[in-house]
């Protein structure tokens, strides 16, 4: 089984049967021109965020249901505000999932939300494939807000938007992704997005936190693994630091956090030395002093705050695509 599918439930493995229309489930299934189209849209929505009155009537009367079965502040708030800026109503459900009967209760929850009038479902779930599972079983457009270690497509899109504004074109660009690739759905979405738009991706992290076949995480020939941090960073046009998922480190994959910080942490002087021109991105929230030191985060190269703002614009774009033009034409 390819690495991407690890951790998938039996009912629905991500991408197993090809793309499911009408949803945003993964960047792996999203063609390049559609990614570009979403980025164009998001760029337009950025302007709305800069207005004095940050509200347009576009999705008035639509209801966005956010179901977050995993702790999240940033993504949840980002979707919430994105929906409100478009005049949609938002209802949010949060909670941990019990380890039994997950699929069943998830489906029932989604069906109930639909009966209450939800027009689309934004789902964050600890199981890879949860979003695909719902997309196939519930008659609602589903937006994946992060499923297990599978994908986090809106995070991938916001990283792409942030970099596209700086670069215009991704062809010939080299991006280093450093950290816990194994558990990172952000990395999976980033790698698909970046390689589809023409960039090359170089991965680096502790061997225990790299997947078995990392080259399968993106378009063939565009993903490689570095043997050292300098090798990963040298010549990079951008560096994406991944969050060390401490909540997923209980299996003893790391000797200690201190060791992680000293071998794989990105410090300002390391970045200045090996890739002085590269932009720095991080999906947040940052474990300061662990995968990234405070100085690196505050440096001019850091686009971390731009990412957050673009996250809202990207989610407005996705909600617009999913919800505008749906009602009058559904079959």
């Amino acid at each position: 089984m390819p690495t991407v599918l690890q951790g998938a439930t039996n009912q629905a493995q991500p991408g197993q049967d090809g793309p499911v229309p009408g949803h945003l489930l993964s960047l792996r299934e999203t063609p390049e021109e559609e990614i570009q189209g979403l980025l164009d849209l998001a760029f337009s929505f950025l302007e709305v965020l800069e207005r004095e009155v940050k509200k347009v009537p576009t999705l008035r009367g639509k209801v966005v249901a956010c179901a977050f079965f995993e702790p999240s502040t940033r993504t949840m708030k980002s979707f919430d505000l994105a929906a409100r800026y478009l005049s949609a109503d938002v209802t949010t459900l949060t909670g941990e999932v019990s380890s039994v009967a997950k699929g069943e209760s998830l489906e029932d929850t989604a069906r109930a939300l639909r009966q209450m009038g939800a027009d689309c479902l934004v789902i964050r779930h600890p199981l890879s494939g949860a979003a695909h599972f719902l997309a196939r079983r519930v008659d609602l457009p589903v937006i994946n807000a992060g499923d297990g270690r599978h994908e986090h497509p809106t995070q991938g899109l916001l990283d792409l938007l942030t970099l596209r504004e700086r670069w215009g074109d991704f062809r010939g660009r080299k991006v280093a992704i450093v950290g816990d690739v194994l558990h990172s759905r952000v990395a999976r979405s980033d790698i698909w997005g970046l390689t589809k738009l023409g960039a090359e991706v170089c991965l680096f992290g502790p061997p225990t936190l790299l997947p078995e076949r990392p080259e399968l995480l993106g378009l063939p020939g565009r993903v490689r693994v570095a043997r050292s941090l300098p090798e990963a960073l040298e010549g990079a046009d951008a560096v994406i630091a991944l969050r060390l998922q401490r909540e997923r480190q209980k299996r003893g994959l790391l000797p200690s956090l201190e060791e992680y910080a000293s071998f794989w942490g990105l410090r300002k002087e390391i970045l200045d030395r090996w890739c002085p021109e590269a932009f720095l991105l991080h999906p947040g929230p940052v474990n300061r002093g662990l995968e990234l030191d405070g100085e690196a985060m505050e440096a001019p190269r850091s686009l971390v705050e731009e990412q957050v703002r673009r996250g809202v614009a990207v989610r407005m774009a996705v909600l617009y695509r999913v919800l505008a033009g749906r009602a009058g034409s559904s079959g």
Partner: protein
Amino acid sequence: MPVGRARGRRVNAGPGIGGADGGISWLMPSSGREQGGEGVGEQEAWGSHPGWRLREKARVMDGPAMTRALKRIAHEITERNQGAEDLVLVGIRRRGVPLAQRLARYLREFEGVTVPVGVLDITLYRDDLTARGDKPLVYRTEIPFRLTGKKVVLVDDVLYTGRTVRAALDALMDLGRPAEIQLAVLVDRGHRELPIRADYVGKNLPTSRREQVEVKVEEVDGRDEVLILEAETGDPRSEDGET
């Protein structure tokens, strides 16, 4: 449940992100791009029927006629506003924008004042977003000056149902509180569906609903002209939203 079923239910709502169905993809509505359509004027938004075969019926304005009409409008604007003080021009994407820029140029020639020009995209304010099968692209609104207290002249190419202007008025109100909003159009073709009228009209053009008025401008289309096109068969309006 087999995937096919879920897909079957959803395709009509607009084929999805995967786009594997061979149909149009809802992420990239092809119509907008292929037409080079950056933003939508009223005719593109509510009156155009891309799936219809249209034939040219008449050429009602050529370049010099358009220039004369715009120059006259520029004079009318300064006459009515006693100059160009506190005046700003806002063009509705797409063809309202070059027309607004030309008006600004004439105002500079005639009055020696520089009138700022803004760009308005009304897509987010349209009243038919949920009724259409396609997904219009959204372009940026670029109004880098304050509207509050200004006299705004809204500029579009064709005035038809009035729905674009309604959307534009709402959009402007969200951006500030202008002292006054006036409307300038190159062509008024009638068939209003809302109580809206233009303050400045380049040419009144009686048309039937079967017809389509096409304004071409040098900056976008490579030449200046106004054409009347006619649908070859049927009633194009009944097809609205189906293309």
